[in-house]
């Protein structure tokens, strides 16, 4: 219950919140694919895509900079791409040396590096927006409608439901361990690495058993409410004409951005 912080949904009354979740999922995916297709250095298209995002932010009443502020999550991964700065042949634009190595940054390398980061940064933002304006259970429904196998969506629904229960459990376990992680004056506390690893493994094993046995109880609870192996759900969603128009409009805009990017 305390890990509500895991929920990324922002309760607001807005046009975007009210859209059918399918619309939001499809537009998000199309937008991300379009980003992947934009060539390096398509600056105008990048800017337009960003404007598209800002507009979506505004329409969701989250504030213009909502996704912008949270969009740096993928940045650490950029390290992986840093080598393109030096490895792509081109005009040198700068250099520095660490120890005995001399690194030369090329213009082509810089172009590629910055393009990768922008693509990633745009894609992360739309994904952030998606979960901020769609409740996760609705997202699951959307994927169900989009023909993702029911068994996967059901597993995900259970995962989401028990994520909170089990992470709370883990945090209580970690707290209990922490509160007994004491020391005495003059002795080195903590035990050996192997011992600590074993304690962590015991915690994982403990959690596994409890989860496994819990799944039995849940299965019993399901049985006693008539479950026989098939899951039935009511369809809470219906595509309205507004939903179709918005999808068409968004796809058209993304397509135009794509064309501009390739001119």
């Amino acid at each position, binding site marked *: 219950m305390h890990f509500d912080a895991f929920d990324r949904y922002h309760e607001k009354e807005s046009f975007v919140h009210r859209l059918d979740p399918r619309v939001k999922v499809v537009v998000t995916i199309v937008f991300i694919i379009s980003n992947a297709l934009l060539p390096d250095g398509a600056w105008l298209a990048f800017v337009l895509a960003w404007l598209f995002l800002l507009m979506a932010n505004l329409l969701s009443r989250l504030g213009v900079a909502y996704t912008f502020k949270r969009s740096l999550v993928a940045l650490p991964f950029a390290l992986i791409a840093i080598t393109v700065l030096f490895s792509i042949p081109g005009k040198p634009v700068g250099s520095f040396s660490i120890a005995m190595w001399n690194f030369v940054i090329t213009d082509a390398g810089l172009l590629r590096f910055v393009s990768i980061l922008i693509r990633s940064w745009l*894609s992360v933002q739309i994904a952030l927006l998606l979960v901020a304006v769609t409740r996760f259970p609705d997202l699951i429904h959307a994927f169900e409608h989009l023909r993702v196998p029911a068994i996967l969506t059901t597993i995900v629904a259970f995962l989401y439901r028990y994520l909170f229960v089990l992470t709370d459990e883990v945090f209580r376990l970690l707290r209990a361990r922490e509160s007994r992680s004491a020391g005495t004056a003059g002795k080195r506390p903590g035990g050996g690495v192997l011992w600590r690893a074993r304690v962590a493994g015991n915690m994982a094993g403990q959690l596994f058993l409890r989860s496994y046995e819990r799944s039995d109880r849940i299965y019993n609870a399901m049985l006693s409410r008539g479950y026989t192996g098939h899951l039935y759900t009511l369809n809470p969603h219906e595509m309205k004409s507004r939903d179709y128009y918005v999808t068409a409009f968004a796809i058209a805009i993304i397509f135009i951005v794509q064309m501009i990017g390739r001119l």
Partner: protein
Amino acid sequence: MHYSPVPMHIPDGFLSLVVSVICWITSASIIGLAISKTNKALGERQIPLMGIMAAFIFAAQMINFPVAGGTSGHLLGGALAAIVLGPWAGMLVMTAVIAVQGLLFQDGGLLVMGANILNMGLLTAAVGYGLYRSASIRSNKIKLGVAGIAAWLSVMTGALLTSLELWLSGTSQLQVVIPAMLGVHALIGLGEAMITVSALAFILRTRPDLLGEESESAKGGGGWIWVGGLIALAVVLFSPLASTDPDGLNRVAADLGFLGNAQSGAGPLAGYTLPFLAFTSLGKIGAGIIGIIVVGAVILLVGRGMKAKA
């Protein structure tokens, strides 16, 4: 708040469309197979079991232990999931975990999710299970030892495949990305191995029936030993080769059409991101088809909108 234990969740933007799509197709086919297999094996109990197990893996990834100098060991869980639930169920469980991490926490992208599922879910489960299965009739000590090696190798395999995908996408250089990823993951894999082994030891002591002859874990066919063994062997042989002779791989990749010739110095950079679709005649046809699809989709949607209730 959420901590991702392994630097293997690729975000969107770092893989090219072609690599992403190929990974999606591969993952989707394996997942499809896994679904039909688990349906048969587990029956009606499968849904709550796998759902809770997915939540378990997610939560267990937060268990850490201090190593030294502020770093800590973590669990990724692919091998553990496959060993306790059997390979197919383990794969589905890992798929759900990675999907939620990407979807809800942007821990890994959506277009590249196929790749993330393949690297961290399907492959780790196959390698982890295959190797473990080869020792599953031995004594507990041997079983646990092999499980440790399996867990370590599963992480290494995932890291290797991740490196290859990054390289094929033109995001990173082979000489750099392979040693970097494998180096980091050799350590991460140690944490993985230690936690996996002691978690299994815990289960063997408290509920041996879950890992015994009759359990799901023992039911995977002997073919898994081959699958796991061969993949593991490939890693062991391939990674030194790849880091010492990257040019050879470059040539192969270029021949297969993955890489533009940018690597060798000439040619347009766009070849990196769009090897099939940019600036070639094939690319122009592809772009044309995409255009037609988009226009068609827009018209169809507008038509549907006019029919639907306001």
